[in-house]
Structure formats: C-alpha cells, structure tokens
C-alpha cells in the first residue's frame, strides 16, 4: 500500500474546475482520461449517442449539455435526474474551496460474500462506472461565507448503499465538524444499507447517529437533504435527524419499499405515496427545494442557525 503525497487536482469535472483533494495517482489518471461527468448512471438514448437525453417524465428531447448546465433537471418539466456526487459538490461549494476527505478509503469483502454475484466484482464494476471509490464523497468546503462539512451520496455507486466506508466517511466528517465547530450538510441518495457487508452495514446506522448525537450536543446545525431516492437504512439513520430536513421535488423517500408494503398490507398505496410532496403534506420534512435553488437556500438557513458562530466557522474553529 503506497502512500501518495497530497497533490492539487481537479474533482474530475468538465473544464477541470480546480479544487484541492488528495487523490491517489490511479484515480488521477482516470480523471484525466475521462474528464466528462462519468458518474451519471447509464441511461437509454434513442438518438445520436452521447448527445441527447429524453426526459423520463415529459419525454422532451434535450441536449446533454443543456441538461448538464441545468444541474440534471429537465428544463421543461423540472424532473430531477440523478446527479453524480462530484457534480453536485461542484454546484454547491465555492470554487477551489472543497477539500475531499478519506478519498483513499475502500470497501473490503469482509464477509467474503458468496452468492449470485460477488461483492468484489460489484465494487470493481461500480468503481469503473462512477470513478468513485464508494457511495459517498465527504470533505470540508465553503458555501457562501460558511465553512461546512459536506457529505454527498452517489446513487450511481451500488444504489448509494451504506456499508462500512459510507458509515466511516460520514462519521469522520461529523466528528471533524464537531471538533471544528462546523455545520454538517449531508445530501442523501440511497436505497439503504449494503447487504454485502451484512450486520456491519446495519451498525453504520448507529455509528452515524451516534456521531450526530454529539454534534447536536455541541449545538451545531445539521442540514439533511433528501434526494431521489432516500430509503430504508439511510432514511432510518442520519438522513432523518436533521435540524432541518429538505427534499428535492419528486424524490422517493421512505423506510420500507412500496412493493413490500403493498404485499404485506394487501392494500393499494395512496397516490404520491412516499414522494417528497407526500412527506411535506404529512409534516415529515421542512421544505421541498428544487436543485437549482438548493445552495442559496442552504446558505440562507445557515445564516440563521450559525448566528454568533460566523467567526468560528470562517476561521475553521
């Protein structure tokens, strides 16, 4: 296991928007090879490959570039497509301000999971397709005038599932925020806990919530943003305990999967069940915020929740 010295490099985004992160040389090579946003999950394209995308909701055809420029939101119907973690970070933090943490941390097949498919091969497959090492990116960056501890999940990596790495990265992030007096913002996108790591995955629910307990005790704000989808083990842990909980429009949010509920209860699900709008109506979240407005909204909430702490946050504790 070689240790690479810290180097300045890009986040792997278009036009090489600079940011500081300590990657391994191997990932750096990958980024250079394919600078385009590679983390978006594969999707069907009816016409000229790589140029057009058809909106899943309204069916309109749009240029990929148009979709990218609009943060992967359909300009016509506002359908929110999945967005890669790094792309989202890029849209949230001030240029050059994000320092990625624990980028070299990788999952291990601790159970030597044998079954229909091996965990190791799944990990390899998603590392290739997303250019990520696991399903969350964490680090400290600046949003407006605040330094924030930011964790962003990527549904493209094994359904955004939480195993040891996701749990550990988030826990370290939260602990660092507690130590430095920073707010925590976590953007969730996950099908739940990761089966391949068995009960280790389950324990990440308690681990992350435990770290948040002490962050809350230090009277620091935690903003939880729920995106499509945020379900099961992730929803039943850190995602549900924000001081403020926001959701993107149309996001699927819940504990049990809708098909499981249907088959268990033998009843028809109400219209819009488990959507962000349904949760808002039932009093379970604070607000629905479109992706394009998310940064401004988060910054404005921080103005209120960080009253008296501005200096601390600006100096980094």
């Amino acid at each position, binding site marked *: 296991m*070689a*240790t*690479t010295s*810290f180097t300045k490099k890009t986040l792997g985004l278009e036009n090489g928007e600079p940011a500081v992160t*300590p990657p391994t040389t191997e990932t750096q090579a990958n980024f250079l090879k394919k600078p385009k946003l590679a983390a978006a999950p594969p999707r069907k394209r009816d016409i000229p490959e790589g140029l057009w995308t058809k909106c899943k909701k309204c069916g309109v055809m749009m240029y990929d570039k148009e979709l990218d420029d609009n943060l992967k939101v359909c300009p016509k119907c506002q359908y929110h497509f999945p967005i890669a973690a790094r792309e989202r970070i890029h849209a949230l933090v001030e240029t050059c301000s994000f320092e990625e*943490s*624990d*980028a*070299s*941390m*990788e999952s*291990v097949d*601790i159970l030597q999971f044998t*079954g*229909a498919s091996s965990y190791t091969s799944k990990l390899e497959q998603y590392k290739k397709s997303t250019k990520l090492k696991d399903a969350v990116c964490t680090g*400290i960056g600046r949003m407006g005038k605040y330094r924030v501890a930011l964790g962003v999940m990527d549904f493209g990596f094994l359904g955004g599932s939480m195993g*040891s*790495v996701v*749990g*550990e990265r988030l*826990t*370290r*992030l*939260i*602990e*660092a*925020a*507690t*130590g430095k007096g920073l707010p925590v913002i976590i953007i969730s996108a996950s099908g739940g*806990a990761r*089966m391949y790591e*068995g*009960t*280790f995955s*389950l*324990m*990440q*629910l*308690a681990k992350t*919530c*435990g*770290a948040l*307990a*002490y*962050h809350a005790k*230090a009277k620091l704000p935690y903003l939880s943003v729920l995106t499509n989808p945020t379900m*099961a*083990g992730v929803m*039943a*842990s850190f*995602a*549900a*305990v924000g001081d403020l909980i926001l959701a993107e429009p149309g996001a699927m949010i819940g*504990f*049990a999967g809708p098909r499981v*509920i249907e088959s*268990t209860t033998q009843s028809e*699900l109400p219209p819009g*069940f488990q959507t962000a709008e349904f949760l808002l109506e*039932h009093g379970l979240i604070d607000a629905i915020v479109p992706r394009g407005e998310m940064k401004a909204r988060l910054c404005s909430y921080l103005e209120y929740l960080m009253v008296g702490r501005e200096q601390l946050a600006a100096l980094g504790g």
Partner: protein
Amino acid sequence: MKYQLDFERPILELQRKLDDLKKHPEDHSLSVSFEEEVAAIEKKIEETRRQIFAHLSPWDRIKIARHPKRPFTLDYAESVFTDFSELHGDRLFADDPALVGGLAKLGEQKVLLIGTQKGRDTKENIKRNFGSAMPEGYRKALRLMKMADKFGLPIISLIDTPGAYPGIGAEERHVAEAIAVNLREMMLLEVPIVATVIGEGGSGGALGIGVADRVLILENAYYSVISPEGCAAILWKDRAAAPKAAAALRITAKDLSELGLVDEIVPEPLGGAHNNLPDMAQMLKAALITNLEALKKHTGSERLKMRYQKYRAYGRFVETQKKTAGLENGDSSTNGFPGAGAI
C-alpha cells in the same frame, strides 16, 4: 400435535416409537426387558437431538429463532424478571402491542424492561403485527428509556422482530425517524443498557431498541441487515434461495461473535430455547446480571464514552492514505469521542 421443525423429524419418529411402546408394552423385543427398551430409546432420542443440534446450518438456526413456541419477551418478563408491570403508549398516537415495556426487578435490581413482542397464535399475532413494531412502539420505548435515565434505572432490551412494520400508517407517521431518533438518543442515555437478541434481530427495527453498552445474543438467534428472504429476492432473484442468503450474510450468533459484532453468546438448552424455558430463563438471567453488574462499576460518562467507542469501531475498510488534512480532529484514534475533548 407439537410443532416440529423439519430437521427435528428423526427425534419425532423416535418419540413416536417410544409412545407406541409405552401404549403396547407387550410388543417390546423379546431379547430385552420393556424397561431396558424404553431406556434405550430415550437414550437414542437424547443422542439424536445432540447430534442434530451440533450440526445446525444457519438456516436451521433461523427456523429455531422463528419457532412459534420460542419464548418471547413477555415470557422472559415473567421468568427472568419479577414484578413486571407493563406501561403503555407513546403519549402521542397509540400503544403499540408489538413493542412492550415496563418496570421490573432483575434479581434485586430495579430496571426498565423493553422488548419487541410476537403473538403466540394468529389472533395475538394480528394484534402484535407478528412482532413488527410501529413508529408508536419506538416512541414509547424512547419515552420509557428517557424516564429510566432520569431516575437512574438500568435498561434491559429484548429484541425479537422480523423488522419494523412495513405499512402505510407506519410511513405516514415516519417510522424511519422514530428509529433514527432512538439510535441517536440511546447513545446519550447515562444509565447502563444491556440489549439481547432473543430471536430475530431484524434490521433497523431491531437496532431501534438495540443501541447498548453490551449486546448479547441467544445461541440460535440471528441479527441481520436484511431478512434472508429479502436478500435472496434481490441477489438471487428467488426467495427460495433464503438458506443460501442466510449463510452468506453471516448472521448467526457464532458468526457475529467471530466478527466482533456481539459481545456475548447466551447458550440455549439442548433443542433450543423453546425446549426448556426454565433453563433458558436461568441462563439469560445470569448473563444479564453479570453484564449489568460489570457496567454498574463505571460512571455514566465512562459508559457513554465506551458505548460511543463500541459503535465507532464497527466497520471494515482499507485506506492507502491514513488521514486527510481536513479531518484530523475527527479521527477516532485521537478524538473518537467528540463530547469529551472537542469544542
């Protein structure tokens, strides 16, 4: 007819043979006396049972964990504890019969007992949702635990649930939040907490009352992130592959102990907990008292620190770079307990 598991069949057949012999003593073998033959069969039964239970597969153990005759929380409330007095309701919406709680004595020690509760028959199972708790259950548990913390009563949690209830009302009343809040708040309760998985440890629904200083598990219980059937349906595209999933997930008491995810295995009587409740209750009681006494030697803040570290340590991964510039303050090796040194 007594409920039998498929792998218990050889025992059942011998038992039948023994019953027949007792009914018709004139049929016994000519070479030995009636008494000798009875003794021989009884010995064979014991040997067979020992043989079978020495070679249980993970799936066999899950069947034992789900045995309809298996002792449930309220059985232990009466056999391990004394003076159990049930307390009801979350003070918000309802009382959840799938998650019970109350004051009780464990030996001389006054405690709060909480636990998920299955039904013994269909009627009771409808009432208790087969041990799958609603948001109200988790909120009731938290209400009682906070009360226990206020008055210095240790908490004993018994876990036996296939998972939190997947229902429309449960979602509308935010079962995910109810569980998550418990995970966070249980980390801050200063009284000792001992949790024991007595049957099924079904995912978040189990963990929702399972954050503890010591986590015990009965020999034939399991604790998993997903049911073997659910895992089989997703990864094998076939619920019938559940026995394979049960093995792959490594969710038996022995597996979890080897992985460092439980603190202690409580042995069950031969044939499983359902085969001998008095013995089972005695063993569980001894284990709970030993663990509680050890925890009582520490102060509340020491326990909080140890509890945090215990969960903090769960997780396996590799890192080529040890630490990252931005997060050095948060590394567990230097400051894993943010409440202690930070700020």
